[in-house]
């Protein structure tokens, strides 16, 4: 019935009907904050609804012009509907952010491994420049991993939940952006390292080194742009679905983070010991004495990172929060 009515809407003054609906859709389109592809899907769905509603009202005897106005009024203001849809689109984007960071990190790592495997085994000791650039690259990659994990943990806790606050979405975007920037720094420094290698090593596979460096830079920049373009829509808070929470397994990461926040000393001590020893082991030095500064630098970088980035990553209370608590 509705289908038949719709097909004859044009004959019943459909021109003004279409323009009223299209005008409403234009308004909704301007208020929506999501990708163009998603906007198209939403607008098609809303158009179908408005056409059905108008056809229904016409079938009940309403004049066409009144039916279109009533259908649009009954649907709700474009601003109201867009607010609900934007919050939903923001929640979707917040879940997408860690996946973008993960795929960027994984592909950059593969490019780095390809560069490393393509080179002949070097028996000579690394120069201090190579040691320093590699160390900074590894530290930045560790920060990228830690912040990526914090963002992924919050996103997982919201994965199966109907609720997602603007605060959570902003946190995820901010933390994932830190992760990608750290990855970019890591890539840049490792690229310097590779260029240095290709200049000083006669037997190095220069084509593989340069291609890997270019691929790594391109991937990390693409990741950063993609994250920056995500529509998190944080001002659009929703508190409508009050019953559905994510199952406990999805909130395990958040549980670990809150435990670290409550008792930071032991986890920080464990991480610094493991990473410090690992840095000493990986440092291409001949004696334990020569390796010690690298271990100490790793420990210092982790402690400094924890104090500087900890509040942003949600791993420790900021001084301001502590003052409020006291």
């Amino acid at each position, binding site marked *: 019935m509705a289908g038949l009515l719709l097909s004859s809407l044009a004959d019943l003054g459909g021109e003004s009907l279409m323009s009223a609906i299209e005008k409403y859709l234009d308004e909704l389109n301007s208020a929506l904050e999501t990708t163009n592809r998603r906007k198209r899907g939403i607008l098609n769905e809303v158009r179908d609804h408005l056409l059905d509603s108008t056809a229904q009202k016409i079938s009940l005897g309403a004049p066409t012009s009144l039916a279109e106005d009533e259908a649009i009024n009954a649907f709700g203001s474009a601003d109201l509907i867009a607010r*609900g849809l934007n919050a939903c689109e923001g929640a979707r984007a917040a879940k997408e952010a860690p996946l973008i960071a993960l795929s960027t990190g994984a592909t950059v790592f593969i490019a780095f491994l390809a560069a490393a495997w393509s080179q002949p085994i070097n028996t000579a000791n690394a120069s201090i420049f190579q040691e320093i650039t590699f160390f900074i690259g590894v530290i930045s990659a560790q920060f990228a991993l830690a912040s990526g994990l914090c963002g992924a943990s919050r996103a997982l806790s919201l994965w*199966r939940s109907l609720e997602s606050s603007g605060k959570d979405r902003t946190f995820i975007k901010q933390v994932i952006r830190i992760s990608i920037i750290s990855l970019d720094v890591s890539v840049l420094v490792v690229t310097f390292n590779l260029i240095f290698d290709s200049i000083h090593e006669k037997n190095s596979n220069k084509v593989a080194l340069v291609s890997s460096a270019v691929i790594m830079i391109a991937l990390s920049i693409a990741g950063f742009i993609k994250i920056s373009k995500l529509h998190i829509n944080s001002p659009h808070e929703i508190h409508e679905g009050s*019953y*559905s929470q994510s199952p406990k397994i999805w909130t395990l990461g958040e549980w670990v983070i809150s435990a670290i926040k409550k008792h930071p000393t032991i986890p920080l001590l464990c991480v610094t010991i493991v990473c410090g020893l690992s840095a000493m082991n990986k440092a291409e030095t001949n004696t334990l004495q020569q390796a010690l500064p690298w271990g100490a630098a790793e420990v210092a970088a982790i402690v400094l990172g924890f104090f500087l980035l900890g509040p942003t990553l949600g791993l420790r209370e900021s001084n301001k929060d502590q003052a409020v608590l006291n």
Partner: protein
Amino acid sequence: MSNQQIKGHLEAMVLAILEEGPAHGYSIIESLRKNSSGLFDLPEGTVYPALHRLEEAGLVKSTREFVDGRERRVYQIVTAGQSTLKESRAAWQAFSSAVSRILVVNP
């Protein structure tokens, strides 16, 4: 009934309607109105954010299907949605009977 009162339960009611069978947005809002005898008179568009949230949470899935000669987005409840609906029903029954015990004056 205020819109705020309905909104807290909108997703559960949408799930209950979809339990009857797949439906598109317009028919869902029609069912809501019909089954509540016109008491739930939300702005019709508010059903779409609810549907999108349910889909995002993996409780319903949507497909494009031809209805009345036009391609429409049709929503269908999935197993996780049925479990959530069961939990929501139990929670609502416990809540409503507790409220009734307090509010309803026995003769």
